[in-house]
């Protein structure tokens, strides 16, 4: 009992710390950029008393992008956490498994056939894009599940099949990408490596409710995830309908990944690294572990986006590349430690 109380305390402290870190990053990120705005002016502008220029930069450009980073970060991190729990595989991640590239493929198809160009996405298109991304993510997940199925799902086979499906979608993407005009090609390439684009309030308005609905649903299933970690037989013994729950949880994870891709492109490794770090911080109990993962994911992605925007300014390094530069080595160390 005392132990669990200590855990609770640690949880509150951790969440508090992470939120503070996120807020600090948020404020710094608001200040930085091609146009620097002093903290006081930021404050004034947010209260609606700033200059028109500051208003434009902050409210129309920076804020929606940063809010999107927070949403996508949480979405991908929780998606990875669920995937790792459901497949009992510590190396699962929507990027590595090919779910992101499935979603990316559908988005590219959508832009190619219905929008003509990356820059002329209509308002109606913005509404449809998450839907297409979701369909792509579900198709990819379904393919992986189907192809990896052989009297059950073996975690190793699942990962290998995922890598294969990933490169398949990658090739298909390249074919359509090269059919676009050169400017769109580059834009699509940057987006596919993970870049928060189309950052405007409409996009936020569509994605926020979707992701913010799915996150509590994942938390609601935390108990189920805990029990599923004990193995299928124990879970069945404890009255969990394993296969049904697994599919539902997979769907939640896939949807989170799909929506995140619609706004942020193919950001890989975040769904792998965030759950890992948070598991080391708080342990495997999902009620505590999932919220920490979500906040950590938000923090990491916002931090990565801030670094990408400012480190080599005026060059903007896509956030997915920043994430990969920092987390691929982490992944390699994990890989070397895993049996």
């Amino acid at each position: 009992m005392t132990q669990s109380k200590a855990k609770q305390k640690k949880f509150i402290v951790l969440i508090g710390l992470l939120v503070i870190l996120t807020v600090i990053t948020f404020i710094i990120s608001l200040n930085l950029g091609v146009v620097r705005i002093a903290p006081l002016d930021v404050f004034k502008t947010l209260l609606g008393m700033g200059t028109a220029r500051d208003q434009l930069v902050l409210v129309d450009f920076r804020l929606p992008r940063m809010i999107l980073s927070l949403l996508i970060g949480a979405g991908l991190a929780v998606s990875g956490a669920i995937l790792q729990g459901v497949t009992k595989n510590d190396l699962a991640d929507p990027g590595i498994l090919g779910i992101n590239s499935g979603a990316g493929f559908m988005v590219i198809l959508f832009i190619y056939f219905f929008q003509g160009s990356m820059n002329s996405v209509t308002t109606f298109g913005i509404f449809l894009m998450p839907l297409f991304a979701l369909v792509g993510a579900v198709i990819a997940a379904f393919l992986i599940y189907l192809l990896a199925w052989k009297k059950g799902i073996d975690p190793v086979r699942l990962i290998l099949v995922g890598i294969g499906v990933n490169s398949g979608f990658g090739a298909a993407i390249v074919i359509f990408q090269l059919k676009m005009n050169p400017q769109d090609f580059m834009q699509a390439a940057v987006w596919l490596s993970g870049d928060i684009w189309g950052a405007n309030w409409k996009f936020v308005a569509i994605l926020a409710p979707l992701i913010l609905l799915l996150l509590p649903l994942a938390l609601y299933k935390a108990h189920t995830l805990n029990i599923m970690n004990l193995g299928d037989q124990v879970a069945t013994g404890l009255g969990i309908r394993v296969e049904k729950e697994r599919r539902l949880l997979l769907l939640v994870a896939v949807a989170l990944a799909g929506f995140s891709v619609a706004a942020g492109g193919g950001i890989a490794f975040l769904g792998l690294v965030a759950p890992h770090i948070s598991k080391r911080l708080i342990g495997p109990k999902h009620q505590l572990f999932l919220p920490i993962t979500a906040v950590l994911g938000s923090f990491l992605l916002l931090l990565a986006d801030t670094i990408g925007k400012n480190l080599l300014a005026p060059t903007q390094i896509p956030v997915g590349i920043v994430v990969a530069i920092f987390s691929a080595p982490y992944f390699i160390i994990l890989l070397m430690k895993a049996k």
Partner: protein
Amino acid sequence: MNGNAHQREGNSLELHKNKLKTSIKGTFVLIVGSILILISMGLSIAYGAADIKLGTVWEAVSHFNPELTSHQIIQEIRMPRAISAVLVGALLAVSGAVMQGLTRNPLASPSIMGVTDGAAFALVITLAFFPTATMLGLTFSSFIGAGLGVILVFTIGAFSKGGLTPVKLALAGVAVGSMLSAYSSAIALHTQVAKDMSFWYAGGLTTTTWGSVKILLIAGGFGLLLALYISRSITILSLGEEVSKGLGQNTLLVKSLGVIVVLILTGAAVSVAGAIGFIGLVIPHITRFMIGSDYRWIIPISAVFGGLLLVLADIAARMVNAPFETPVGAITAIIGVPFFLYLARGERRGL
């Protein structure tokens, strides 16, 4: 006693027969494969935006007339392209075969081992910081980059718990690949060489010249000879490290030579044609299926099949969406991905 000797004699006779069978089959496959390559090369040269008949192709080779445009197109553009396709395919396939033999890992192949991303990384650095680099300099840098990729992946495998299992190899390749390509993209975006890189990533043979053919011939010739030289040792090594040591082989030497072969072959292929995946994965498996596990045969036949596959893929790349070219790497991926999935699903078969 007597019967035993009899049996042994019978066994050795059986073995001898088998060997003979393999030799006949191997020679047959090699000859048929080479003929098919010649035909496909002819088709590859004849097919294109300017309509050229097969007969003209032959004329351009036998009685070259510099005043005819068609002959010039053939000599200057299409012939180097067709020859490069064959050579690149052959080099990649042999490189994959050697990797699979050395690591006893069915998924080993240049595109999975971080080789291509390593080469791309080195190319970006060269383009970004030495914009005046010559073709030779670029080739050399892609050699070094390819080496970097392989060494990283191998090191991760060697230092990880439980050794280099197929899934570890694949994941290490993914991780090293995405790390290096992240660095490349960041540098490319910052120094504005991104456009130069974009096509290269897709892999293609459009920019091949007689210069590329020369690089491929020199590097490929040397690499192939070395591969053939160690082919017997690779066969033994592919039976297992212990067996190889027990038979008195210097496994370290064989492995080192093998890695050099892989570096030379992949480096040359990648520097000419960019990232063309899956040939090094698919071809050695098909060859092994046809001819068995003797690398003295696997290596030359892989070379022939690899060359054939890439010429055909290159023709397909030009036909699918004519007059635009589809990246040939996408075509090989379409063939290779189902194959990869099949291997990933399969039980661990020996090599």
